[in-house]
C-alpha cells in the first residue's frame, strides 16, 4: 500500500501488550489528586483510562494523528516534542517510549517511525527524556516508564540512578522473546535538601 493512502489509524501506534502493561501499572499508581502527563500518548489508551481517576490529565505526542486520537477520547492533548511546550508541574508522568534499536538504514520515514525508533541503542529518546523530565516533575512526582529487554533494562536503570533518581521495578511481563517492565522513578528525597 502506498504511504500516502495510509489511514490515520495506520500512522498511530495501536495498543499492544506494552500499552496494557503501562496502563495497569498507572491505574495502580495514580492518586485522585495527581496531575498526570502522558508523553507520546499514541492512541490515547493509557491516559484515557486515568481520566476519571486523577485530578487532571494531559497528553502530548509529536504525531498529529496521535494528538487527534487522544482528543477524540476526551483528553486534552498538545502537539510537542516530549514535554518541550509544557511547564508542569506534574505529579505523575507516564511514558512508553520508542525503544526498538534501529539502525539508520532500517529507518522508514513516516509517523509510526517516531513511535518505534529508539536509535542504534534503543535508548536515544529515553536519554533525552531522563535529562529533561526533572523540569516538569513535581518535587514528590513519580515517573512510570515502560522499558523492554531489547532496550536494556539495567542500562536504563543506571541512566536514571546516575541522574539522582530512585528506580523501582513495579511490573513485568514476558511477551514472546521480550521482557517488558515498568520502572517507577522518583527523586532521591534525601538529596532534595540543599
Amino acid at each position: 500500500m502506498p504511504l500516502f493512502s495510509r489511514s490515520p489509524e495506520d500512522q498511530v501506534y495501536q495498543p499492544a501488550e506494552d500499552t496494557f502493561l503501562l496502563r495497569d501499572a498507572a491505574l495502580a499508581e495514580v492518586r485522585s489528586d495527581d496531575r498526570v502527563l502522558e508523553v507520546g500518548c499514541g492512541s490515547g489508551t493509557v491516559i484515557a483510562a486515568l481520566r476519571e481517576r486523577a485530578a487532571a490529565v494531559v497528553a502530548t505526542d509529536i504525531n498529529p494523528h496521535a494528538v487527534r486520537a487522544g482528543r477524540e477520547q476526551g483528553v486534552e492533548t498538545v502537539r510537542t516534542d516530549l514535554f518541550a511546550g509544557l511547564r508542569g508541574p506534574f505529579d505523575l508522568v507516564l511514558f512508553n517510549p520508542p525503544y526498538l534499536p534501529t539502525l539508520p538504514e532500517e529507518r522508514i520515514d513516516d509517523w509510526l517511525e517516531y513511535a518505534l525508533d529508539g536509535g542504534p541503542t534503543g535508548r536515544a529518546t529515553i536519554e533525552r527524556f531522563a535529562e529533561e523530565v526533572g523540569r516538569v516533575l513535581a518535587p514528590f512526582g513519580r515517573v512510570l516508564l515502560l522499558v523492554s529487554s531489547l532496550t536494556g533494562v539495567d542500562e536504563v536503570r543506571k541512566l536514571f540512578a546516575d541522574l539522582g533518581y530512585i528506580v523501582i521495578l513495579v511490573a513485568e511481563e514476558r511477551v514472546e522473546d521480550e521482557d517488558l517492565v515498568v520502572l517507577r522513578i522518583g527523586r532521591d528525597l534525601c538529596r532534595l535538601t540543599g
Partner: protein
Amino acid sequence: MKRSLLPILCCPVCKGDLELRVAEEKDDEIIEGALFCGACEVEYPIREGIPNLLPPTDQD
C-alpha cells in the same frame, strides 16, 4: 484546548509564558487560535482544539 491548560504551557524554545489569542471558542474550548511567545516573537497555532507547540522549523 480549555483555558485552564494555559498556565501549564510554555514556549517550547525559551520556556517563557505564552499569550492566548482566540479566533474561535466553543463550549469553554478554544478551537482555533494561537499561542504567542513575545520573547521569541513566534506564534504557535491552535487548530481543531489542539495547540501545536513544535518549534517553527519543525512545523509541517
